[in-house]
């Protein structure tokens, strides 16, 4: 039902039965319902078993009665048969029926048929023969027909050692206890009615229970130290108890605010100064706190607020808020909050991230109305959010740039794929060109994604290199092949100045390749058409390798030369605004070089070009650096 919005402080994971049962109405209701249901089914089961036992007992008694009756009639019949008293036998059959228990009775001999029956018309002989076929022997049995509810008893008779005579009795006596069915039906009915009533009662009182359970939970949380009103309030829709509880909490909150305000005012008027109590605590806040009266007179101001307003305690104490420079927006918002029909809370941001270079800042100001004894006052809270806003801006710029960077090669791949598909097998030259472009753009995409992953690794502090002995010839050859087409497109003269011999170095081939790609890619990107890019590789006597990437491009201002190695950072030059770039390449390249124990340095002059030098130390130096 979600009536309580509460976060209780974390406690050790030991099971606490009190808290378990104080978890709320839903648990109480569910547990209660389950308990009642189990109880109802248990009672039902007991009633059912009892009815079954009664049934069994009644059936047993009936069977015993039938057995006694049949044994008695059989013994009397045997006596009469032994005496050859056929009329007496027939009277016995009639008497048996007349007694009420037996419905039909007859005695038959296997080869002669019925000799005595309660129904005289069925008697087949006039006199009892002296001899009969006594070879066949019947088995005593009792058959109950549930449809007709009649019981047929067959009892073999023995007369002077002769068998072949059978006594048949039809007894109209139920073998079931009819009364137990009504007990079962009644018990099921009572249980159903009970459950329905319980559901109706639960529906009626569910909200009230919810409110009480919520209040109970809030009290438990308060007992654990929770004081935030939003965590202790319960849903208003849960009934009058919830509304009263919330009102009480709101009143307590208001009293707290008044007490805090009062304490601040007392303290600011000399009640102990700033060195004790709440004012002293407020002074340790990095958030600026100001309390102003309805006429904007500053009743209290903490140190952080003075710094944010570029003022001092002496200037601000007992003066009005407009004493602080550039406080117009704060004053305007404060007056709005203090006005009779204005909002009780206002939030605004002042300053612009663009002004950071000129000592600007972005301040987040929250103004809340605090009435004390019907006198309006306003609390002003100030936060410096400059770095957050810059980070947000960088992130947005990065996402926009990354999207653009990814979309460009994807578009090229799509266009060339369509062209190759349309050309089919007819134009082999076009197909080959398309495949080459697709291959080159795919590798570009791979590098961009690799750069992004590397940034994530740098952020996580998990970027590492796996150095191994490697030859660099192949690496530079690949580099030349990868950028030849791009250089040709811009008519850039690309020169690879390689040494006659390539000694082995200790490096991570993939990472080093990534750094070199970023350096050469940047050089081509920022060199205008018909320019020149030179890649000069040297090996020192100590085994170190230096790769200088020299271009005669737009150059970088001296003030920007270190900054361009920052992540997501690009030089402030309007000419590069039209060139796509994520601002990650140089940061990654330098990070990779440093992880190898080397570095990347830059020498540049505006409009004359730049030289980026990557240095990877020899194995010995690298071991020292590690």
């Amino acid at each position, binding site marked *: 039902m979600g009536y309580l919005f509460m976060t209780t402080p974390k406690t050790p994971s030991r099971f606490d039965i009190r808290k378990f049962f104080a978890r709320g109405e839903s648990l109480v209701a569910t547990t209660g319902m389950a308990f009642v249901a189990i109880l109802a089914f248990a009672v039902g089961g007991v009633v059912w078993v009892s009815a079954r036992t009664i049934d069994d007992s009644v059936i047993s008694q009936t069977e015993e009665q039938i057995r006694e009756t049949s044994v008695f009639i059989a013994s009397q019949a045997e006596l009469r048969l032994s005496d050859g008293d056929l009329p007496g036998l027939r009277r016995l059959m009639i008497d048996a029926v007349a007694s009420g228990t037996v419905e039909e009775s007859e005695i038959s001999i296997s080869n002669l048929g019925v000799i005595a029956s309660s129904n005289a018309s069925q008697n087949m002989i006039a006199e009892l023969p002296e001899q009969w076929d006594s070879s066949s022997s019947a088995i005593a049995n009792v058959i109950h027909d549930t449809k007709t509810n009649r019981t047929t008893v067959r009892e073999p008779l023995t007369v002077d050692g002769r068998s072949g005579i059978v006594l048949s009795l039809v007894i109209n006596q139920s073998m079931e206890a009819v009364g137990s069915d009504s007990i079962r039906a009644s018990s099921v009915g009572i249980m159903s009615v009970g459950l329905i009533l319980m559901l109706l009662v639960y529906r009626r009182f569910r909200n009230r229970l919810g409110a009480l359970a919520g209040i109970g939970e809030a009290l438990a949380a308060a007992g654990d130290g929770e004081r935030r009103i939003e965590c202790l309030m319960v849903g208003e829709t849960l009934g009058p108890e919830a509304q009263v509880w919330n009102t009480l909490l709101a009143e307590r909150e208001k009293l707290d605010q008044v007490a805090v305000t009062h304490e601040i005012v007392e303290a600011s008027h000399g009640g102990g100064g700033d060195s004790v109590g709440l004012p002293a605590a407020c*002074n*340790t*806040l*990095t*958030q*600026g706190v100001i309390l102003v009266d309805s006429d904007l007179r500053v009743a209290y101001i*903490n*140190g*952080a607020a*003075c*710094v*944010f307003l570029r003022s001092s305690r002496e200037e601000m104490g007992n003066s009005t808020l407009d004493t602080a420079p550039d406080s117009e927006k704060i004053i305007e918002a404060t007056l709005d909050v203090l006005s009779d029909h204005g909002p009780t809370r206002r939030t605004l941001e002042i300053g612009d*991230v663009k002004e*950071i270079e000129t*000592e600007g*800042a972005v301040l987040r100001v929250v103004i809340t109305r605090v009435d004390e004894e019907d006198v309006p006052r306003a609390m002003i809270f100030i936060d*410096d959010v*400059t*770095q*957050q*806003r*810059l*980070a947000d801006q*960088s992130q947005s710029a990065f996402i926009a740039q990354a999207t653009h960077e990814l979309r460009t090669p994807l578009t090229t791949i799509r266009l060339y794929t369509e062209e190759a598909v349309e050309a089919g097998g007819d134009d082999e030259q076009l197909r080959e060109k398309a495949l080459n472009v697709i291959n080159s753009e795919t590798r570009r995409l791979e590098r961009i994604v690799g750069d992004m992953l590397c940034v994530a690794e740098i952020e996580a502090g998990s970027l590492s290199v796996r150095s191994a002995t490697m030859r660099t010839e192949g690496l530079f050859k690949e580099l030349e092949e990868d950028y030849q087409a791009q250089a040709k497109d811009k008519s850039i003269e690309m020169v690879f100045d390689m040494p006659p011999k390539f000694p082995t170095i200790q490096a991570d081939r993939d990472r080093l390749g990534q750094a070199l790609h970023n350096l050469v890619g940047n050089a081509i990107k920022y060199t205008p058409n018909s320019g020149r890019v030179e890649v000069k590789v040297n090996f020192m006597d100590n085994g170190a390798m230096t790769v200088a990437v020299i271009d005669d491009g737009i150059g970088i201002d001296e003030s920007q030369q*270190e*900054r361009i190695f*920052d992540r997501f950072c690009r030089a402030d030059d309007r000419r590069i605004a039209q060139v796509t770039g994520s601002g990650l390449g140089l940061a990654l390249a330098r990070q990779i070089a440093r992880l190898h124990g080397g570095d990347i340095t830059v020498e540049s002059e505006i409009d004359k070009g730049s030289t980026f030098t990557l240095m990877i130390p020899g194995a010995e130096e690298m071991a020292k650096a590690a």
Partner: protein
Amino acid sequence: MRIETNRHGAVTVIVPGGPVITQEDATQLRTESFAVLGSTLGRFIIDVSEMSFVDSCGLETLVDLTDELGVSGQSLKLCGISDTLREILAITGITSKFQQFEDVQTAVRSFL
């Protein structure tokens, strides 16, 4: 002494380029740091990775800076502290006056 000032977003990083062992070094650090403090509302860090040693004047400068920041509830953020410097701060009993960070990036991120 060479003192570099770099900007990381809205955070200024002051990097003393060597040990602070003379009155002149300490005065230079004080002047530059207080100027940055005043202009950045306290959004600054001192990267002491190249400051292998600091004398009593230098320590006094650092303590004054953190006390000044304390007025607005902040404290001085130092990063890249060497073992020697850490030992000096511990012996003089002022370690707790500063916030310490492993590197510049971590220190800058603490302003978020």
